[in-house]
């Protein structure tokens, strides 16, 4: 399928028929540009038979509803907005939930040094075990445990 000459981004799957100075002018555009360019009474938007047959289509990656239903794969983040209603229906039926129960983890810098520290201690612990320094190993284990408790605290908060 050709690319839309206006946005040069999406597939041109829609014909825009315009009446300019008594003459008919046809242009092949993507559905979004066709909507934008259409001028009320003087133009008609004709959706191609392929689009009608395969259902609506994601304007960014070209995935059609038909393809989504067949593969259960989305092509890009925008697909999730285009097929939101259909997906919500499926989710309700299959898992009895329609939205995420968790939250987005916060960006915070406090946790990074903790993780680095834990990595260091783990390395030292492995060394100690290799050299059979068990007293040292026990100490290191305690320290790692403390850090893991802190990490768990972050997890919960």
């Amino acid at each position, binding site marked *: 399928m050709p690319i839309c000459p206006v946005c040069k981004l999406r597939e041109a799957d829609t014909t825009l028929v315009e009446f300019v100075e008594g003459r008919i002018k046809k242009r092949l555009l993507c559905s979004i540009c066709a909507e934008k360019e259409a001028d009320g009474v003087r133009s008609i938007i004709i959706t191609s038979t392929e689009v009608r047959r395969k259902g609506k289509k994601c304007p*960014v*990656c*070209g*995935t059609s509803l038909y393809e989504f239903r067949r593969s*259960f*794969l*989305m*092509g*890009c*983040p925008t697909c*999730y907005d285009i097929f*939101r209603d259909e*997906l*919500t229906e*499926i*989710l309700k039926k299959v*898992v009895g*939930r*329609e*939205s*995420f*129960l*968790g939250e*987005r*983890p*916060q*960006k915070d*810098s406090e*946790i*990074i040094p903790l*993780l*680095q520290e*834990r*990595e260091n201690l783990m390395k030292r612990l492995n060394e100690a075990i290799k050299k059979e320094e068990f007293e040292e190993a026990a100490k290191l284990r305690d320290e790692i445990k403390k850090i*893991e408790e802190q*990490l*768990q605290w*972050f*997890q*919960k908060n």
Partner: protein
Amino acid sequence: MVPEKLINTIPQWLKEWKEGPVVTLILQLSRNLKDKKFPAKLSIGEREEIVTMVCEELEKTPFWQTPLKIKCGELTSDWLKILFERKLITRYILNSPQGVCILFDKEEKLLARINDRDHIRLVIRETGNNMEQAFTNLTASAYILEQIFEFSFHEQFGYLTSSPVYLGEGLSLNALLHIPAIFFTRQTEKLFKILSDYNILVWGMEGEGSDITGSMVLIKERDLLMRKEDSFARFQKALGEINELESTSRSILMVQHQKELEDRVLKSLAILKSAVILGLKEALELLSTVKLGIETGIIDGVSPNFFTRSLIFMQPEHLRKKFGLPQLDPLRESELRAELIKEALEGEHEG
């Protein structure tokens, strides 16, 4: 390039497993970069740009000091098969490796697949007795990723993944189980009941669509849109119930069918010790029975690593590489498999 020594090492996530039904936990976190099409819709050039950017950032984090890095598109199909047999790549990547890169540590416990079905898939593997640690690592990794990248996140669906089955946390919880007593005592219906109660899918050890052989199964929790803490707690509970079922089944075997069990175990051991030709499935069934014999104390004196050694090295591509076979020759392959298992039983080339 794949380091040559890879074909002679047992991945740590398998080697550390000594006994019990949970061989390995496999936790996977999927993430996609903000405002970018998912890998399947990208050109190879666009995928390679993502690989460069993501590798550069990942290599700065505390987890990835000196990772092994392999660009799958540059490999010949035999090496891709080696990676596949070691579970470093999926069947999907095996068939379309262009623009895919993997990073992993030398223990093969931590793995990042770039441009699998999602831009980043982080896989953490731990033996069954390290469950808590696996989850702490996962949480820590999720935090780290969040600090360094901007991801696609949807107000309704959470993290966006190319397949909606991971929506929410972008999380997939899996485990590789070895549950011979459940199969011997025909308790499989009870097993399937537990699995369906917890919304868990089950396959053979090769994953989706594979047959169950050697009492080994791969299970996958399918509880999308939940908080990861809740999913994990549920999964742990399910594993606890399966553990329970396997140990009850073992008691039944030991008390009510002791002679039959002994017979099966010792016959299996005798076959492994004297077989000249062994197919993959046949070998797996026999190995599993012998392993049960060791865990129940019927036999001793067998090298403790023999099961995991055989499991990894008896696979077709590993055999071919190890013995330098030029073309796949099923008969020769089966001969070499029988030889290799004999060696593993005697504990030769231990290390």
